[in-house]
């Protein structure tokens, strides 16, 4: 037991008034501009990402760069507030590049790149980190060839790349910024299981990169940025899970079978209750991770892995139960539920599946596996 670290302090896990105000503002905007019918309809258009909505979120509400200092064009808040925004975006499965841009923000902050940050903050430029979306923090990077700052190779399944203006590419031990208009850059949107969060394949053929950083700092900064992504993703998953529970509860109250509201049937009621219990826990976990990110706590790696290990199955179960509790109508295209099922499914894979985060926790906490000595 001596290998286990001391108990880290637990910060404030509640929502502050400022955070609740921010939530209300974001929700009001999304209610107006991203109702689920809008979101569903957009998935079959040529522009699955809603850039106009993103610009409004960034410019009017300052959501694109909450943790960026005001002198760098940001809102001077922290990742806690960003997590509240992520909850609301999850709740609406809003088709905006918040997650990818937040990872990029964290990375640019880490390497001290100011120009791109300013563009990001205003919502004018979408920046994405060119790694496969399923990579967990710290996983080996896709090897790319670099020749005099010209980069070649394939990066499949990149988050928020389809709408990106700039790609951040770790290659050859350095970090580069690549403009997607460069003739050596090809971004091919993939048909994504989660239609509201399309991934895209990036092919680089001697693309011109602007070098932002070099050396061991790059791999660490990429992992740290992915960790911030994991924290925000957990908040987004919390939003999805809550919305699924709300939808299920509304249906169970409303729908009658056998002369009674469905929700009066004990088995269904208990399943909804189990979900509510799980989500109560998930809220505390997600808030802890957001607070660790905001304060730069040394427990952040644990908190981020914990958040993903807990929230991925929670959101997925909430979405799956939501569909099942709806019965036949839950399986139809012209209904709200599948948007959340698909989002929760992609969330469970993006930035590493729960089992990978549990394995990471084993290492961080010193809980050795079968082959290791303690």
């Amino acid at each position, binding site marked *: 037991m001596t290998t286990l670290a001391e108990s880290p302090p637990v910060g404030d896990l509640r929502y502050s008034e400022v955070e609740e105000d921010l939530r209300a503002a974001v929700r009001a905007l999304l209610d107006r501009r991203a109702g689920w019918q809008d979101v569903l309809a957009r*998935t*079959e258009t040529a522009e699955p990402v809603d850039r106009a909505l993103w610009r409004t979120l960034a410019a009017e509400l300052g959501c694109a760069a909450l943790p960026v200092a005001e002198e760098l064009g940001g809102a001077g808040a922290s990742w806690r507030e960003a997590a509240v925004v992520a909850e609301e975006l999850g709740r609406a499965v809003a088709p905006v590049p918040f997650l990818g841009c937040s990872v990029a923000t964290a990375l640019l902050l880490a390497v001290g790149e100011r120009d791109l940050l300013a563009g990001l903050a205003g919502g004018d430029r979408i920046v994405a980190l060119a790694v*496969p*979306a*399923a990579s967990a923090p710290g996983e080996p990077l896709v090897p790319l060839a670099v020749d005099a700052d010209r980069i070649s190779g394939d990066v*499949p*399944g990149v988050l928020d790349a389809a709408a990106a203006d700039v790609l951040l590419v770790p290659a050859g031990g350095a970090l580069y910024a690549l403009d997607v208009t460069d003739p050596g850059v090809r971004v091919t949107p*993939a*048909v*994504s*299981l*989660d*239609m509201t969060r399309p*991934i895209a394949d990036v092919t680089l053929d001697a693309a011109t990169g602007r070098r932002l950083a070099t050396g061991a700092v790059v791999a660490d900064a990429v992992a740290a940025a992915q960790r911030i992504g994991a924290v925000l993703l957990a908040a987004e998953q919390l939003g999805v899970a809550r919305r699924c529970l709300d939808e299920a509860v509304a249906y169970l109250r409303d729908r*009658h*079978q*056998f*002369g*009674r509201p469905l929700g009066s049937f004990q*088995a*269904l009621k208990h399943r909804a209750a189990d979900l509510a219990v799980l989500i109560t826990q998930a809220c505390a976990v997600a808030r802890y991770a957001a607070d660790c990110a905001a304060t730069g706590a040394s427990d952040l790696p644990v908190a981020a892995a914990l958040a993903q290990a807990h929230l991925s199955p929670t959101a*997925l179960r909430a979405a*799956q139960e939501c*569909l*099942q509790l709806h*019965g*036949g*109508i*839950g*399986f*139809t*295209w*012209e209904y709200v*539920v*599948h948007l959340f*099922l*698909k989002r929760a*499914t*992609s969330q*469970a*894979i*993006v930035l590493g*599946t*729960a*089992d*990978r985060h*549990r*394995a990471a926790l084993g290492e961080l906490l010193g809980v050795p*596996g*079968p082959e290791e000595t303690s």
Partner: protein
Amino acid sequence: MTAVSSGPEQAAAGPGGSEVLDRVREFLVGHPTAGADRLAFLRARFDAGLARVDLPPGQGGLGADRDLQAVVEDELRAVGAPEHRPSDNPIGHGMAGPTLRAFGTDEQCRRWLRPLWTGEEAWCQLFSEPGAGSDLAGLATRAVREGDEWVVHGRKVWTSLADRARWALLVARTDPSVPKHRGLTYFVCDMHAAGVEVRPLRQITGETEFNEVVLDGVRIPDTDRVGEVGQGWAVAQGTLMNERVSYTSGTAPRHSGGIGALLAAWHDHPERRTAGLHDRVLSLWVQAEAARLTTARWEQELARGRPGPEGSAIKLEHARLNQEISQVELEVLGDAGLRYPDYSERAPEPVPWTEAAPGWRYLRSRANSIEGGTSEILRTVVGERVLGLPPEPRIDKDVPFSELPR
């Protein structure tokens, strides 16, 4: 002691194995397989009682032991006879056939069973409605008698194969003034009749596998009623029981179905392996193998004429496992698990389960716990009919349908 046999307790009154074999050989003399027209051959086979030997004469059988069907199949396969393909008409074979045999008149059996068996006429079912899913007895489609006909108005959903079915099993309300279970009547509905409109419904897979069927003044002759007026609930229960325990076609080999696809993904993606995922894959293998053996055991019991309670259990586990396995497969695939082949609206192509895309299997499997009786209804069936637990107090059983809150 370990060989599968029908046992002495099943000494059938009908013809024995050698007699059945004689009938097949006799039949083949009159109907050589070389250059045979498939449909003509199948019709003649039905008439000769070689469609399913355990059924009575006249219904495609000989009244023989169920096990002896294997004798027929082996012999016909050996001579390369035209194939019978029951999977082309699943609702016909799984639901319409048993229902007609149990509740239909002789005339109805004569008219429908042969083209059903040969596959000439496909069937679908018109049971569920937007307001009546699990609570089937709450359905609102009305059938009003006019002379020798019934005039039907209503809307049915969750209907597969409606676009290519010739006939439909239909339950409609013929008397709203009595409690809901007592006012239903069962019909066969001609899908080519005036007033039948089939509208594709799009599902979460993007496809239009199921349909909405609108019945707008459809006229059904009273001779196409199955069972007595007001007995529709009992007949429908028989149909659904058959759906839930529908015939399977032999024990699948180990690693067939979803678990095989999962293991293939596991082998193909060494970079995605973690200890936790490894244990989860093995745990699913254990559950899949248990499900396979359960089906095998149930078929052995069926062959002895003693089906156990496994029918509902098999359906429940099948749904749960399909869902879990396909989910873990996406997690094993990682980046590939984030992709989908095609969401554009279209009628589905029938593809073997393991040849479909992983994402499609994942989404499609969500319906497994809803279609053909939700898992919730099946758990109640197991609890009450298998374990004998008491029903819930009902507030909707003695009230006239027309007075129920809906």
